């Protein structure tokens, strides 16, 4: 510790107070949008003002009779999908303010990745969004391939698409299952989804050796080749998927309770969604046609015929419906990819597993993960490990509009709206 002379200390204090008096807080980032700072009760600074141009819903004024109630939902709340806290200010049952609090599952992934080789971060990416490890692997492999300029063989690209779409299918199935569970139908719909997910996880296990922590993709290809028996088994599973989606559709989409609970609830306007950087099914449910599979055409997606379902209202029901329709599109992608998959190597013969040093530079690899745009931003300084390793997690950024969707709704709807965002805390907190 360095000692500071008394007069210098006074000077520091003076500078600090000057900054504060001039209006901007010392860190350059104050409590955003007139929100109270950490520790302050969140209903103390409620005003009816909101910044212009964002189309954020207006704040709701408390009705005036009775006191506001501040409830901490979470971090151990069954609806929070992990350890996540929502500090909610309630006027009766109505939500007046909502503040998301995260960081309970922070694992220092980005900093760890800067200290280990490029390869050693691959198994850690499995643990980001642990529901869909394959797409995490893919995004990271894509970023490193961009950085080093590696090519991926044809067969590996097909395998990546097959595995990515299987992942999307099981993610959407289980996220719908969780959504219905949060509506109060505990168990059954989720177990229907998990029955299908189990088949897909079995495929992953027989190919990669692990159900969830697959660690499958490598820079310049995939780790092991899929045997013809595995491909046959996959074709068999994929042939059974439409039946499952039909069943889900028949049981849920026109269900009266589901419609009553979800239609018109948690509306997210298209311009707010775009401004907030929301991506994935949530953005498309608001009616914005933006799918990175179409925009970037990474991998072999520009060779495959599929449609991008779009919503109209941006409410919870639309988000549910988009996931259901995307499951159907995933099946058409899977059938095409499984039909066309060529023979050949799955690994670039020039690719090195370890001990490679990319040239100084930067790369951003992004894919359309089941939850939205998943990007890895890497800066290399020519060393064996990245100089900077940054993840753009879709879950975290989709979560930022939670308050805007929840204002004015009941507490029970907050749980539902939160479920419709479809997050995994492993990815939010990293």
């Amino acid at each position, binding site marked *: 510790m360095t000692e500071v002379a008394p007069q210098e200390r006074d000077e520091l204090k003076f500078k600090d107070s000057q900054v504060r008096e001039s209006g901007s807080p010392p860190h350059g980032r104050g409590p955003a949008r007139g929100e109270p700072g950490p520790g302050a009760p969140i209903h103390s600074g409620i005003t009816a003002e909101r910044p212009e141009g964002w189309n954020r819903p207006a704040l709701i004024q408390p009705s005036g009779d009775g006191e506001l109630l501040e409830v901490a939902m979470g971090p151990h709340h069954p609806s929070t999908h992990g350890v996540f806290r929502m500090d909610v200010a309630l006027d009766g049952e109505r939500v007046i303010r909502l503040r998301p609090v995260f960081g309970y599952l922070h694992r220092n992934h980005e900093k760890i990745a800067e200290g280990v*080789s490029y*390869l050693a*971060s*691959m*198994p850690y990416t499995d643990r980001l969004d642990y529901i869909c490890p394959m797409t995490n692997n893919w995004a990271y492999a894509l970023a490193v391939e961009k950085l080093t300029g590696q090519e991926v063989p044809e067969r590996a690209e097909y395998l990546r698409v097959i595995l990515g779409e299987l992942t999307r299918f099981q993610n959407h199935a289980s996220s719908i299952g969780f959504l219905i569970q949060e509506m109060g139908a505990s168990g059954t719909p989720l177990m229907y989804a998990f029955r299908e997910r189990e088949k897909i996880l079995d495929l992953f*296990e*027989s190919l990669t050796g692990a159900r969830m*922590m697959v660690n499958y993709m490598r820079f310049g290809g995939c*780790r092991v080749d899929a045997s013809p028996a595995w491909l046959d088994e996959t074709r068999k599973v994929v042939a059974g998927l439409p039946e499952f989606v039909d069943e889900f559709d028949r049981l849920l989409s026109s269900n009266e309770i589901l419609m009553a609970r979800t239609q018109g609830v948690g509306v997210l306007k298209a311009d707010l969604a775009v401004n907030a950087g929301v991506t994935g099914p949530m953005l498309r449910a608001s009616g914005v046609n933006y799918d990175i599979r179409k925009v970037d055409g990474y991998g072999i997606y520009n060779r495959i015929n599929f449609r991008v379902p779009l919503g109209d209202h941006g409410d919870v029901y639309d988000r549910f419906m988009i996931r259901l329709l995307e499951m159907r599109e995933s099946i058409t992608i899977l059938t095409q990819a499984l039909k066309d998959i060529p023979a050949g190597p799955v690994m670039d013969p020039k690719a090195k597993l*370890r001990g490679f040093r990319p040239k100084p530079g930067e790369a951003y690899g992004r894919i359309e993960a089941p939850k939205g745009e998943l990007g890895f931003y890497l800066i290399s300084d020519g060393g064996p490990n990245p100089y900077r390793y940054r993840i753009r997690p879709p879950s975290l950024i989709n979560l930022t509009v939670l308050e805007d969707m929840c204002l004015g709704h009941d507490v029970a709807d907050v749980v539902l709206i939160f479920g419709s965002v479809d997050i995994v805390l492993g990815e939010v907190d990293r």
Partner: protein
Amino acid sequence: MLGEGILKGMAETAKNFVGSFFSAQRLTTVQYPEQRIAAYEAARVFPFLVYDTENRDGGWPEWEAGLRCVACQICEKECPPKCIFIEKSKDKKLDANGKAQFYPARFDIDISVCMSCQICVEVCPFEAIKMDTQFELSTEDRFGGLLLDCKQLAKPNEYYHQIHPSDAAEVDGRLAEGRAKADAKVTAGALAAAQKKAAEPPTGAGN
């Protein structure tokens, strides 16, 4: 008719109830400790060290003599959670190709830290470390019991063949190729030396 719907519903329930005892598709429960599902060939849990039973350098116990590991410490360096600890030996022992190599004086894996990522297996140039499928590893001692040393990790090549047959066959083929190459080099070297010797005028009485 009054109650027709209920009867229909109950008929469906009864069908499902009976079906849950007889339909093979729905009898999915496995009574675990008694019944087991066979592991997939690709299954991986924690790493183990492979040793060759036919390779015997005199004076060593069987598992230590045949150990393929040469303590190059690549896996230690590449392991993401850094759960491997290797200490290189001072002296050398003969490996399967008859070449003097270092061996691990200590090789510890802390399986409470290991995350089963298989990177040690991929980076090993000597096919010395492979993934085991043994998952029932509970122990009373959560520190010492989960820190496996060289002897606990060493398993024969036959065991590897048993759990990953096609991988093991491939590895054996690759190793045999390497051995044949090494042998060819040795014999070529011996031949060249013999020719050189033959070309020189004999000096000793023994020639």
